[in-house]
């Protein structure tokens, strides 16, 4: 059975992971309130938005991410990879909850959506929990996730700076002097968001990956005003087009997933032609950084697993630490054959914008930072086990790449660092035997208390 956004909220409530606020609250206070909670927060009485509920902090811990994934906390990457490896094509239906209310023409008004100001230095209110679909005549459908900054009741900015398939689609439309139709679904199950974040090959349908994660087809419905399909069970859908102006409109700053307030960027404009939503919609407020970071982690971890397998290296475990935003660092343990510490590093450093990779052996628990430190200390010789790659693809949110020195729409590069913390070739295993206490398994302190 395909689970919806609301199903996931219900599951979180059942797991005592949601705080419900019934008192009236001003939308301008919602982000700060959410940031003070360890649990997800549901607002049932947002002033001026009586028809809406607002929820945030849904997956801002690994426990809640695991609940979303239906896996243990350490197995989210394997669970994600399983979905990627077994895609299930979506199905089209004709009647959808996300179109219970349809507003077009003069009825389009983005201020009617609880469009929140999240962070102090943001250039305006943002919607960030998006599943954005577009099509290219040659490459077909693409689904990604892009933030939308409020501009007017019918227009938003959209961050299309980073390399992506939709950026390519937009460039091709721009070259042809035509707009690019897009549709934005908000309030979809985390599986759809994860699939949208996954850097799939251009000919792979992200909806099929979401289907693989659900183990059930995603139901889609045709949009009302554009030739695109969106998840039928979404809470909210915006339909419209990216107008062919290139990277010329100011957008940002936005509190980035890197925990830093970003810079003003130059981006296209999204002109909204229709707003559709459920009759009793829930607005999903995904604010930075933690919720985004936890959502990044399984996507990057699964990409790391795939890269290792493609390099014929046998992974044991992998982790994208949330301290590096679940995005910039990969740590993996492998079942190593000679030379594979370096092969594994090369594979992991090929993943997206990962700029630090650490590879160690299967006896190291990579979920324990102390064990990682230990392996780095006793299995690494810096002149033999460290790789630096210069001039690889970087990401704007990383201040060390100096993106501000580039022109509008330009892409930054970065250096990448790999550390091979596996036992070096030729070092006898006996030098890595862990100490054990004499009779450790034969006596119990409890018996003497």
């Amino acid at each position, binding site marked *: 059975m395909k689970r919806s956004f609301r199903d996931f909220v219900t599951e979180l409530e059942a797991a005592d992971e949601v705080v419900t606020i019934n008192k009236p609250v*001003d939308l*301008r206070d919602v982000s700060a309130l959410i940031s003070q909670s360890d649990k997800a927060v549901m607002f049932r009485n947002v002033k001026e938005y009586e028809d809406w509920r607002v929820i945030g902090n849904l997956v801002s811990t690994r426990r809640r991410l695991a609940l979303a994934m239906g896996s243990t906390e350490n197995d989210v990457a394997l669970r994600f990879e399983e979905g990627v490896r077994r895609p299930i094509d979506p199905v089209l239906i004709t009647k959808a909850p996300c179109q219970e209310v349809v507003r077009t023409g003069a009825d389009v008004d983005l201020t*009617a959506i609880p469009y929140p*100001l999240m962070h102090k230095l943001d*250039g*305006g209110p943002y919607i960030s929990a998006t599943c954005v679909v577009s099509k290219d005549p040659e490459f077909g459908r693409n689904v990604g996730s892009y933030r939308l900054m*409020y501009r007017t*009741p019918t227009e938003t900015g959209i961050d299309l700076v980073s390399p992506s398939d939709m950026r390519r689609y937009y460039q091709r439309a721009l070259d042809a002097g035509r707009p690019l139709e897009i549709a934005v679904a908000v309030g979809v199950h985390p599986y759809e968001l994860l699939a949208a974040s996954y850097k799939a090959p251009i000919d792979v349908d992200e909806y099929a990956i979401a289907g693989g994660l659900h183990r059930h087809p995603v139901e889609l419905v045709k949009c009302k005003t554009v030739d695109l399909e969106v998840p039928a069970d979404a809470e909210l859908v915006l339909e419209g087009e990216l107008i062919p102006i290139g990277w010329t409109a100011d957008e940002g700053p936005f509190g980035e997933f890197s925990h830093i307030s970003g810079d003003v960027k130059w981006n296209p404009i999204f002109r909204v032609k229709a707003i559709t939503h459920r009759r009793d919609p829930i607005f999903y407020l995904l604010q930075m950084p933690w919720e985004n970071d936890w959502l990044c982690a399984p996507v990057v971890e699964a990409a790391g697993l795939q890269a290792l397998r493609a390099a014929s290296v046998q992974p044991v475990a992998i982790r994208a630490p949330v301290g590096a935003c679940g995005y910039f660092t990969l740590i993996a343990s492998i079942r190593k054959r000679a030379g594979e510490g370096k092969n594994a590093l090369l594979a992991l450093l090929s993943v997206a914008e990962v700029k630090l990779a650490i590879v160690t052996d299967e006896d190291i628990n990579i979920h324990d930072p102390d064990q990682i430190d230990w392996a780095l200390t006793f299995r690494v010789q810096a002149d033999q086990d460290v790789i630096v790659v210069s001039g690889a693809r970087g990401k704007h949110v990383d201040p060390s790449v100096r993106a501000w020195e580039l022109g509008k729409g330009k892409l930054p590069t970065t250096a990448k660092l790999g550390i091979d913390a596996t036992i070096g070739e030729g070092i006898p295993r006996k030098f890595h035997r862990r100490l054990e206490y004499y009779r450790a398994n034969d006596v119990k302190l409890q018996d003497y208390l």
Partner: protein
Amino acid sequence: MTPLAEKLRIELSQRPQQFSELVDAHREVPWRTFLQAWGSLRAANILKRDEDGNYTV
């Protein structure tokens, strides 16, 4: 342009400001009214940005 939009325009002509500063200065205004006024400033195409992300006109 609404009276609030005109007020925002005058405030920005006096000094560059972050979006949140403008929001803070008009907390008495309903959020939707504020967003509509901001939208009319945007539509008038008079907003500029400085290097710190402040808005100016």
